[in-house]
């Protein structure tokens, strides 16, 4: 039996191939990032859906049938939902395109009026040219909405790639696990399960949370008789993927639409009350229940992550900033723990000792 103290000397040449493959992969990702992007999204979706497949797998259903079953049933429901939503959305977007000039005119008249009053009282504000800036923004809104439409193609590509990732993913992961360095596989798998625990719970939690908020917002706004309830609810749902943003986006957008639609203050107060209610419901009930096992991030850290994510990768950078922060936080925590154990920079923890012998 070989002694554990004896270590085989490593030949540096054995690292050449993995390093070359790694560098080539990195070069490929940088050069073809546009093509790689749907695969990143698909991998994220496959990661989120995998526990559902595992659920059926451990109950005896073969993986390929579990994936096919999930796609047929969930796909049918989702397709119907998306089709209905698109039906709503296309009618509402068309309506918005037609009515937008009138709304923009009213909004501009209101701000011009306000601006004149403000400039009269505080002449320094006149130099800022608020009116011209607002007019420019108003012209940009319809263009922005139309520019979002190409992103919808991802809705068809991503599930397609995810399907194949889910079917073949298990085998690839098993292969990789079996080829981890044997001696370190326990530590590597420990780290992977720690990250998986917090990140998986976060992603599944935030998706559930965004969906629940979308449903509440859609129902509430429909009941209030607000125009474009579906568009606003979808935007609230998507913006809920970014912590704190959902309710703010909802309150601002709905208040503007309510002002343009009703022209009185009461509906705006109702809407603000409704979104305050959503915010509290989210904080007090939804998050403690859904996110109880997820990483607990400080609001200041979330803000920093969102700003840095936006700076690095635009809108997708913002979407991915929190999951990436989760990973970084977990890795940092593990690194600190490893200091005490593996790296031995700190003395090892003492085992529990009891003076009374076994009786």
């Amino acid at each position, binding site marked *: 039996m070989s002694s554990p103290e004896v270590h085989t000397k490593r030949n540096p040449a054995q690292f050449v191939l993995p390093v070359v493959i790694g560098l080539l992969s990195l070069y490929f990702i940088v050069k073809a990032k546009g093509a790689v992007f749907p695969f990143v999204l698909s991998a994220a979706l496959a990661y989120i859906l995998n526990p559902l497949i595992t659920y059926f797998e451990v109950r005896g259903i073969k993986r390929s049938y579990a994936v096919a079953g999930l796609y047929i049933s969930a796909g049918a429901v989702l397709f119907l939902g998306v089709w209905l939503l698109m039906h709503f959305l296309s009618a509402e977007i068309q309506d918005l395109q037609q009515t937008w000039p009138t709304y923009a005119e009213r909004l501009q008249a209101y701000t011009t009026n306000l601006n004149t009053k403000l400039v009269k009282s505080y002449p320094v504000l006149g130099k800022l040219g608020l009116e011209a800036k607002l007019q420019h923004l108003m012209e940009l809104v319809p263009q922005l909405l139309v520019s979002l439409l190409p992103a919808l193609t991802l809705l068809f590509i991503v599930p397609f790639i995810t399907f194949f990732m889910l079917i073949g993913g298990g085998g690839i992961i098993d292969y990789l696990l079996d080829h981890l360095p044997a*001696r370190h596989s326990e530590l590597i798998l420990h780290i992977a399960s*720690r990250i998986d625990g917090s990140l998986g719970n976060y992603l599944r939690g935030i998706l559930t949370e965004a969906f629940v908020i979308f449903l509440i917002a859609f129902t509430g706004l429909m009941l209030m008789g607000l125009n474009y309830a579906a568009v606003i609810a979808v935007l609230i749902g998507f913006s809920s993927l970014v912590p704190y943003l959902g309710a703010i986006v909802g309150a601002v957008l709905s208040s503007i639409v309510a002002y343009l639609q009703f022209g009185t203050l009461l509906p705006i107060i109702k809407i603000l009350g409704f979104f305050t209610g959503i915010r509290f419901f989210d904080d007090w009930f939804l998050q403690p229940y859904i996110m109880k096992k997820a990483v607990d991030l400080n609001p200041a850290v979330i803000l920093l992550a969102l700003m840095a994510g936006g700076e690095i990768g635009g809108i997708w950078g913002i979407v991915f900033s929190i999951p990436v922060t989760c990973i970084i936080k977990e890795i940092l925590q593990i690194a600190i723990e490893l200091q005490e154990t593996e790296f031995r920079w700190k003395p090892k923890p003492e085992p529990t000792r009891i003076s009374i012998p076994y009786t």
Partner: protein
Amino acid sequence: MGFLNAFSRIYDEEILHKLDFLRNISLFEGIKKSQLIHVLESLQERTYLKGETIFAQGDIGRALFIVLDGKIALSRLDAAAQKSETIAEVAPGEFFGEMALLEEMPRTATATAVEETKVFMLFKIKLDSLLFSYPKIGVVIAAQLAKILSARLRALLEKPAEN
């Protein structure tokens, strides 16, 4: 017959074998078959080739290993004699490294695959998750773990008397 054929194509027999296997592990004694599914969900499967070291004496333990197929040798280094001695061989259905589920402390022996060996790994973090999500399963595992440790301690104390 057609229905049975279709069912056998969809149904994975291997899962049934794995569940039967887990039912015979003393650590999971008393857990219902339907609940064993949750245990199976928490286990990580891995194959070690002949001669590979699973962990070494002094490494921090983080998982319990259940031998599914193959054989594992446990050896301990005698510090005084600077010699490694095989203290046990673990066969299919047996498990080792359970101390890692209680404390993240250094391993007291080295585990090496004597032949190509398939193991199930139960990580402490997964056990914690089981304890909180399915307390009924958690209670059984904790009680069995206490029983096994007590039996090992008793065996250790009774050893000199036997000699």
